């Protein structure tokens, strides 16, 4: 879990840097993004990493749901009085729920962009590259459907934020890294990461929606 979790965290950074290019909605900006998208789908090294990524998501999700089910079975009779907030935070106890929300989002997200980029109907820009930027902009500017997509996107980023609020530091503990000096720093870094990165992601579709008018 921790190995794939940390790999997915590193993916979040790279993917964010790519997506932030969409904050430039000029024609040149869109063409730059399309050229980047082409590079990401064709460059051999990136291809290898992307297969590793698909595998990591699947493994992380399947193992995570399996562990969550095993953990439920470990306490067949529930407590009638149970005050977990006195000893732990909500996110840490609901990683399975948060993960499932993220999984639903990943499926939706990939069907909207990844599938279309690979096999769907998609136009080309003046450079002859597949015009992914146009697909993205249409998705989030498309009337009330676009509004719902933006809302789903923002809510999913909130789920990622809560998942990582616990998950970031947790992955280090799983590896046995717990140190009087470094662990408090890792925790602080984790809290900062889990707020800032999903927030930056969420800004992108909101920005695109607002740029419509």
């Amino acid at each position, binding site marked *: 879990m921790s190995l794939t979790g940390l790999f997915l965290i590193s993916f979040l950074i790279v993917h964010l840097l790519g997506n932030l290019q969409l904050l430039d909605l000029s024609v040149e900006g869109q063409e730059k993004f399309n050229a980047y998208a082409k590079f990401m789908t064709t460059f051999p090294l990136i291809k290898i990493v992307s297969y590793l990524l698909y595998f990591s998501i699947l493994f992380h999700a399947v193992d995570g749901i399996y*562990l969550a089910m*095993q*953990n439920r079975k470990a*306490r067949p009779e529930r*407590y009638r*009085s149970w*005050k*977990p907030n006195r000893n*732990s935070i909500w996110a840490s106890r609901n990683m399975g729920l948060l993960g499932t929300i993220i999984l639903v989002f990943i499926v939706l997200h990939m069907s909207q962009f990844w599938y279309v980029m690979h096999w769907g109907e998609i136009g080309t820009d003046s450079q002859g590259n597949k015009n992914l930027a146009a697909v993205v902009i249409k998705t989030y500017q498309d009337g009330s459907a676009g509004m719902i997509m933006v809302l789903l996107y923002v809510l999913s980023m909130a789920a990622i934020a809560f998942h990582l609020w616990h998950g970031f530091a947790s992955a280090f503990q799983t590896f046995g890294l717990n140190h009087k000096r470094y662990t408090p720093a890792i925790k602080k870094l984790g809290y900062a990461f889990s707020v800032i990165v999903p927030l930056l992601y969420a800004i992108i579709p909101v920005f695109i929606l607002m740029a419509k008018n």
Partner: protein
Amino acid sequence: MDLKLKIWRQANQNSKGELKDYAIKNVSADSSFLEMMDQLNEELIDKGDDPVVFDHDCREGICGMCSLHINGEPHGPENATTTCQLHMRKFKDGDTIFIEPWRARAFPVIKDLSVDRGAFDRIIEAGGYVNVNTSGNTLDANAIPVPKADADEAFNAATCIGCGACVAACPNASAMLFVSAKVSQLALLPQGKVEAKDRVLHMVNQMDLEGFGNCSNVGACAEECPKEISLENIARMNREYLGASLTSTK
């Protein structure tokens, strides 16, 4: 003070239990929680009712025998305190108190509030010891130098009394805090290093066989532990386990 109690009654492991209501009057604020339970049982016996079964032994916070999930928390609302050391002055006149057993598949109910914690004994039997030479030429323990910091860490881990509150508190009913304390107290000392790899592999294996849940680093265990065993022990056990699985030749 007068109290309303909601106590879990269950005839045996296979029967269905339920919460039963009891009213108790004139409880001294200076009595301990278990003395309050004694008072209730005397009243029940006087009335010809079945007394409530609960575990206890030393009643001074050192044996790990007492348990009880009190008002939603193992060992009740006070931190770093066993149920036998919890006092009734922590409650108010007229309070309703929920009293339930530790709940985990690996801790089956024997009767009422008493659960079978034999799983912990079997984990210790799987490797939680050192094979010392006791055949007449035993080495003086002080002859082996141990850095003070290591000795302190090992001692902290060794203060675990094996009560099982960590399992009771964990949303996954995981036993990692207990097992990691028992692994750590030996792994930190030269006497424990010899068998370290087998120890961690065997104890973790037994822990999984007993049907405890998996650790997801929630941390409820350390918050509720009456001996304040820290999560650093779990990290140490994860390190030991990772190292042993990668390098063990068996």
